[in-house]
């Protein structure tokens, strides 16, 4: 892959997210840095609890009240983490859209779909009710909700899971944002619908040049979709490389474990949970490789030193050279 000549659209710099809880701090995201350029499709993969959603939420300024975020998220010259809510509100949905993990609960059950879609352009573009309705219709057509005209007045519970997910995607598209954060947009769906949704996201990216961050724990989903992949473990980036390289010559023991755990690439039913051992304890800041208790290649050093993410186009955080790995 050629290096990106363009300046990044969004730049995450040394992002750390901690949660204050009843029994101490939870270190959910640790020192994460990455860039997204215009039109780029970036996958963020990792087991459940690895911090994927929290990264997306921090970009939108939607972290829970007990969260503390450090570092920088640069967008259009400002640090989103420091921006007051009133200014952040100008970026939300207009510049950056988000597709939430659970389409069932992320729609308002008491409002018609028309209102939920329409209010976005009314807010950001000062659209009138009828303009907003027209726009809602267009977008519903674009995400291929059949018979959209008659579904404007429907409520969330009247849609099937797949249609609901399309509504959520439609929401993210209303203002044609430059960046869409798609947090497991297909987890709740069956295989055929999953494929349709991925196709839809692909079309959107191609037609509008939208950058997309695809968050998933399904490596199979990533293979045909994203040109770059970022592998998270315990809130840290383990490896970041072009997707092809991740699949063909993964440079990190964790990534290798993941790939071994996926028996058949492209089979979406295969989940990432098959590496022996359990996810790291996030209650304390660690000064060792977070993966070392489960790593087949671990040496004594691994328990004492924190590997740094290193490299050019393909970055990895491992103390041992690629050639030595099993």
């Amino acid at each position, binding site marked *: 892959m050629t290096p990106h000549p363009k300046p990044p659209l969004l730049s995450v710099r040394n992002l750390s997210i901690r949660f204050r809880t009843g029994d101490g701090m939870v270190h959910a995201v640790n020192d994460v840095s990455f860039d997204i350029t215009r039109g780029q499709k970036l996958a963020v993969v990792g087991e459940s609890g690895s911090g994927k959603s929290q990264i997306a939420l921090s970009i*939108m300024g*939607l972290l829970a009240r007990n969260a503390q975020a450090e570092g920088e998220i640069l967008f259009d010259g400002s640090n989103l983490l420091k921006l007051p*809510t*009133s200014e*952040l*509100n*100008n*970026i*939300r*949905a*207009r510049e950056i*859209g*988000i597709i*939430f993990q*659970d389409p069932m*609960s*992320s*729609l*308002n*059950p*008491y*409002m018609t779909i028309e209102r939920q879609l329409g*209010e*976005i352009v009314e*807010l*950001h573009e000062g659209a009138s009710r009828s303009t907003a309705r027209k726009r809602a219709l267009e977008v519903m057509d674009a995400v291929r909700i059949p018979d959209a005209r008659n579904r404007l007045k429907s*409520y969330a*519970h*009247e849609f099937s899971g797949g249609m609901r997910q399309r509504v959520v995607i439609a*929401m993210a598209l209303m203002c044609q944002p430059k960046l869409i954060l798609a947090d497991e947009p297909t987890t709740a769906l069956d295989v055929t619908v999953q494929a349709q949704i991925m196709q839809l996201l692909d079309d959107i990216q191609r037609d509008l040049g939208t950058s997309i961050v695809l968050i998933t724990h399904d490596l199979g989903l990533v293979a045909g979709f994203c040109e770059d992949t970022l592998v998270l473990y315990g809130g840290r980036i383990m490896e970041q490389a072009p997707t092809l390289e991740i699949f063909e010559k993964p440079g990190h023991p964790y990534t290798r474990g993941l790939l071994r755990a996926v028996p058949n690439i492209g089979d979406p039913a295969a989940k990432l949970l098959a590496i022996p051992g359990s996810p790291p304890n996030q209650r304390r800041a660690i000064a060792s490789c977070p993966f070392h208790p489960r790593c087949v290649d671990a040496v004594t050093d691994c328990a004492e030193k924190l590997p740094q993410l290193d490299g050019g186009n393909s970055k990895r955080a491992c103390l041992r050279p690629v050639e030595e790995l099993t």
Partner: protein
Amino acid sequence: MLNYTLRRLFTVIPILLVLIIFSFYLMRLAPGGPFTSERPLPAAVMANVLERYGLDEPLHVQLWTYIKNIVFHFDFGPSFSQKDRTVNDVIAQGFPVTLTYGFWSAVFVLVCGVPLGVIAALRHNSFWDYTMTGLAIFSQIFPNFVLAPLMVLLFTLSWGLLPGGGWNGGQWQYVIMPAVALGTSYMAGVARLTRGSMLEVLGSPFIRTARAKGLPERTIIIRHALKPALLPTLTYMGPVFVYMITGSVFIDVFFSTGGIGQDFIDGAYSRDYSILLGLAILYSVLTFTLTLLLDLLYAWIDPKVRSNM
């Protein structure tokens, strides 16, 4: 929705009938009657009186006459204890009173309770929240038979601002204290309930979606959060509202409002079957009507309920 309403209205007829029959027999089962007294009436007089009120007939005939009069003439019969007054008269005089202060009491409960709850939820864990919650708990355990005398002590006896009782055609000075005394503990209940449900709604994923749209906080609260946050309050207010407009015996007696609660007490003491039955029917019709209205309101708010109707 119209269908649903009609269906509900039809089911109420048999229910009311069963209720009338049941209370009719139950009341007559209780020992004593409207004309038993310590010094028994001469047998001839007694027979005369019983005949005049139709009490000499077999029970089922009495019941039949009673129901017939209600259905065809909307006549609930004469009062047994108040000479020359019918049950219709008694209700027509007392019910507007309780309806008036009960209505204003409910208004007070909602107009104060809901905003207090919302504010406490928005200022979650702040000084205002703690003050509100403290006050709410305090006034919820404060029974109205403590609050009412206290209010009279302050507003009537000490400051001379409000009359300590009476009704005077329902002038506002006379309505205020009964309404507030009756409503305070419910107001506190509503505030606490609203606070809790508002907090829950504000933490729900669809509110996060609303935030992700860039909507300002005020719009989020009013447009997205308020409706669902009010659902538990609605459920709570249904029976409370019936209770309020049918009058609290204590409020009627303490403030001498002349409301229907007073008639109920009097009726119970003097075994005035017709008054008691009349009031029982009034209560059940009101309860039924209000529950129906509440269900319709619920359906209006919650589309899922609506589609099941």
